């Protein structure tokens, strides 16, 4: 079809700039109404941005506090589900395990063979009711004088456990496989335990008396990465503990594993099977919390509800814009008729009102984004967090407002275009 008939005048047109200017004039000629119309969109977009922003900020916080240490630690608990001496225990004994404990004697080696394990070992609380721990051999007087030391505990630990703890010694050495094999009566002291016992050096080979039995102090643990209760304890080789005091009773034994970075989840899955191929269910491996899982939990629990609320706000906002645009179409019937008489085509009328509603939506979206960002930054500042605003949450927000305005304007704009100039101009 010809763009221009030879006998008709050139088609009327409306440039993008003029359309935007006309729409803006329509928005600002009723500022109060425009502001009220925007509220729903502002709230919806603001809620959307702040929920996503707060979620990513909180998740970032979890990520920050989630240290490398936790990421490389796996513990294996003895569930104690089956009483000792049961079928399982008999089966366990067949597999060469210590009586009364589900962990096999070669736990350190079995775990050490797993891919990703750096060090691993078994430890437990030695089953002594009220052990008398003293730096002097006199049992009778020690019972009273050392009563304030009853907080001290005696831990049985395999050499692998000590290495997995990553301790720093202030003096001396760790006990090792040699002591373990010979069930040597040696011990390590936690820094607090050493202070309470008044022991500061080991070069003079001091001894600690546990219920009168002497244990030679090999070293003093100043700090430790894992198993912090060891600082309050006397640690003895697990073989010696088993020999002298029997297997753990009240508190079941636990395996402590230090893994390579990233290997923890895999090690946690494999450890029970490696230790008890027949009854892996008796052991429960605890991997470090997964940061992604944490974030997902925050996402679903916390923000799910708010995102639904944000969506509701957006719908309310859309209805508000649709309503206002429709009212303004009906109010401005005369204007529509006039514009048609001045050469406007139906599409120019549609475009004008659609641009008006889209501009309203965009304005609401922008305002909502600004408010949402302010909420996130304000919250982060108040809590001394680092505000994390993902571009994918912030950038589309004004566009979301625009989309809401556009959709809301469709019906009123099409209705405006259907208005006949003749009807509109009649008085």
């Amino acid at each position, binding site marked *: 079809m010809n763009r221009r008939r030879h006998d*008709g005048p050139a088609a009327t047109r409306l440039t993008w700039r003029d359309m935007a200017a006309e729409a803006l004039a329509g928005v600002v000629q009723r500022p109060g109404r425009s502001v009220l119309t925007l509220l729903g969109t502002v709230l919806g977009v603001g809620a959307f941005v702040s929920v996503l922003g707060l979620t990513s900020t909180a998740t970032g916080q979890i990520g920050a506090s989630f240290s490398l240490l936790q990421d490389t630690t796996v513990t294996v608990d003895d569930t104690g589900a089956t009483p000792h001496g049961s079928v399982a225990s008999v089966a366990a004994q067949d597999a060469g395990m210590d009586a009364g404990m589900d962990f096999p004697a070669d736990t350190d080696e079995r775990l050490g063979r797993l891919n990703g394990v750096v060090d691993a070992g078994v430890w437990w609380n030695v089953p002594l009711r009220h052990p008398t721990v003293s730096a002097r051999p006199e049992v009778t007087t020690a019972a009273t004088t050392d009563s304030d030391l009853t907080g001290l505990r005696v831990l049985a630990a395999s050499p692998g456990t000590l290495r997995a703890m990553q301790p720093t010694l202030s003096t001396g050495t760790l006990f090792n496989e040699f002591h373990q094999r010979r069930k040597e009566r040696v011990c390590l002291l936690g820094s607090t335990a050493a202070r309470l016992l008044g022991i500061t050096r080991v070069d003079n080979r001091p001894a600690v008396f546990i219920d009168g039995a002497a244990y030679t102090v090999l070293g003093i643990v100043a700090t430790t990465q894992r198993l912090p209760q060891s600082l309050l304890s006397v640690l003895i080789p697990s073989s010696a503990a088993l020999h002298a005091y029997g297997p753990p009773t009240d508190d079941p034994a636990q395996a402590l594993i230090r893994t390579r970075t990233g290997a923890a989840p895999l090690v946690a899955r494999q450890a029970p099977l490696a230790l008890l191929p027949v009854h892996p269910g008796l052991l429960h491996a605890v991997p470090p919390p997964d940061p992604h899982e944490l974030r997902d939990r925050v996402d679903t629990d916390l923000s799910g509800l708010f995102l639904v609320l944000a969506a509701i706000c957006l719908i309310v906002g859309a209805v508000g814009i649709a309503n206002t645009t429709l009212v303004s179409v009906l109010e401005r019937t005369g204007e529509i008729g006039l514009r048609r008489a001045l050469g406007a085509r139906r599409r120019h009328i549609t475009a004008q009102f659609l641009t008006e509603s889209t501009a309203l939506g965009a304005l609401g979206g922008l305002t909502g984004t600004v408010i949402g960002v302010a909420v996130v930054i304000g919250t982060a500042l108040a809590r001394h967090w680092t505000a994390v605003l993902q571009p994918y949450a912030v950038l589309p927000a004004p566009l979301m407002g625009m989309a809401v305005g556009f959709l809301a304007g469709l019906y009123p704009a099409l209705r405006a275009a259907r208005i006949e100039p003749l009807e509109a101009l009649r008085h």
Partner: protein
Amino acid sequence: MTSEYMASEYASPDYTTTATAPSPVLDLRRVCKVYPGSPPVTALHPTDLRVEAGDFLAVVGPSGSGKSTLLNLLGLLDRPTQGSYRLSGTDVATLTERDRAAVRGRRVGFVFQAFHLLPHRTALENVALARLYVTPRGAHRQADAARTLREVGLGHRLDALPSQLSGGERQRVAIARAVVNTPDILLCDEPTGNLDSATAGAVMDLLAELNQAGATIVVITHDPAVAQRARRRVTILDGRLSETACLSEKARLSETAKSGRTAGGPR
């Protein structure tokens, strides 16, 4: 003050036609309008009407006689039921909606009884609105609007809102808006219907002045006094047009009675 109206604007090549002999601006042959319904209303019986360039025609008739119907047909706001209508040589029946909009915007100027000014726009903006769909250059639109407002004697009220203008001033703004595109024809539907007689006289003076400067004008009115200012008069009664120099005595009496009843001050 309106001498350049004809000289510079009206002779623009856009408005020349292909016909060798100058064709009339408006040429109606057997045009009629029947509003469907039960019973159908024949608002305009088959009518012949020619308006030459430079004419100043008044269509006079009582209320309900079909004046607005005729004007809406002339202004392409409505389509005739039958007959052919050529505007500046163009048979408008063949035009698409797009072209009809273009004819309305570029070749026709409308002046309404109720002014139809946008209340939130200044006089200047209201006049410039007529150029909005015609030319994309905003600065030119403003300049054209200002010049035309000066031509109708409102150079000092460019930035006034309609609410700050008197009825006569408002109709002057509306007339400026109607002529700013230098249309082939200026169509005025009861332009003085909302004005007192003194203001109405001034508005008719302005239309006469525009006509002197070359504008082709059709005014419809029920007021014989207003019609008296036109060069040529056509009477319409019950949808039938009759070109008479003066109204019959009976029609004149009834019209005088009607205008006495309906003429009011400015809104």
